[in-house]
């Protein structure tokens, strides 16, 4: 399967082999991923809670949505970079991992959410301030965003709980292949 061989090739490159081999580089990347989630997730939370009308109620919606947007992009860049580094170092395991596949589906849904609600909600925050009322579709967008991002956290944490299918993985066989002579004798 082409995608599987691509995953095997990615993790066999010198860069990702070195990344996987070091005991401290991988946890540093994972920690940065999670620190990014903390800072970036908090901004998503603040935006969504403002749209739901439960936090920062005295501040204009447009101020909260608009002023956090550039910082959220920086956060996403950090989190995604670390995520891709972790993915590349264990691409073959991730290929088989059901939680990782779920996470990709949720990520795609987040993309769709952005496409659907960007023009109808997030770019119109100033109108909500003028009207003095947050419309239902904005609250729906915020609630869906909270649910989707929480599912991302759950799927992400789940990845580590699935044992890699070692019988299928050969790029990183747990024990070396028996020498050819031994195979012939058998």
């Amino acid at each position, binding site marked *: 399967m082409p995608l599987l061989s691509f995953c095997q090739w990615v993790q066999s490159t010198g860069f990702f082999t070195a990344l996987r081999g070091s005991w401290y580089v*991988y*946890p540093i990347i994972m*920690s940065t991923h999670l620190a990014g989630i903390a800072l970036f997730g908090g901004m998503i939370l603040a935006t969504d809670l403002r749209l739901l009308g439960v*936090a920062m109620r005295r501040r204009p919606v447009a101020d909260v949505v608009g002023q956090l947007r550039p*910082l959220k992009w920086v956060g996403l860049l950090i989190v995604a970079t670390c995520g891709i580094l972790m993915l590349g170092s264990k691409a073959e395991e991730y290929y088989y991992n059901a939680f990782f596949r779920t996470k990709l589906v949720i990520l795609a849904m987040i993309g769709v959410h952005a496409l659907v609600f960007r023009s109808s909600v997030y770019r119109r925050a100033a109108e909500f301030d003028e009207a003095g009322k947050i419309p239902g579709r904005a609250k729906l967008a915020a609630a869906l965003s909270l649910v989707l991002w929480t599912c991302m956290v759950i799927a992400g944490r789940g990845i580590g709980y699935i044992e890699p299918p070692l019988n299928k993985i050969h790029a990183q066989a747990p024990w070396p292949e028996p020498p050819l002579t031994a195979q012939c004798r058998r």
Partner: protein
Amino acid sequence: MFLAETNPLNSSELIFPALECIHITGFAVLVGTIGIVDFRLLGLGMRRQSAAEVAKDLAPWTLFGLVLMLFSGPLMFSSDPDMYYLNRSFQIKMILLLLAIIFNYTIHRRVALKGASPPRNALVACVSIALWVGVVFGGIFIAFI
């Protein structure tokens, strides 16, 4: 309660990952809301509001995040207390956590609410971010050392 074998938390293999998810969501609430104040102190976001306004708005959510952490964290600790107690990364994490909480509710709060000179604001924000990011690193490294 605090013996790994008799702890009811260890009776189902789903409880610990569920606690971990609450823990991760909780620190996004806790550290994320503090982070917004820090970015404001650095002049990097929410500039149309004062740092005091941002800090006051988010304080209840920071507390909510802290409650989630102090609920899920000790329960996770109780699942295998001997391991955590002896884990060097966990020990460092607890020291950083204590410092971060004290810093947040003393110097950080005072500077955010009353304001200080720009370099001082920036210093406090950097110390705050460094302490909380340190806590996250300490948490992850528990599983790697």
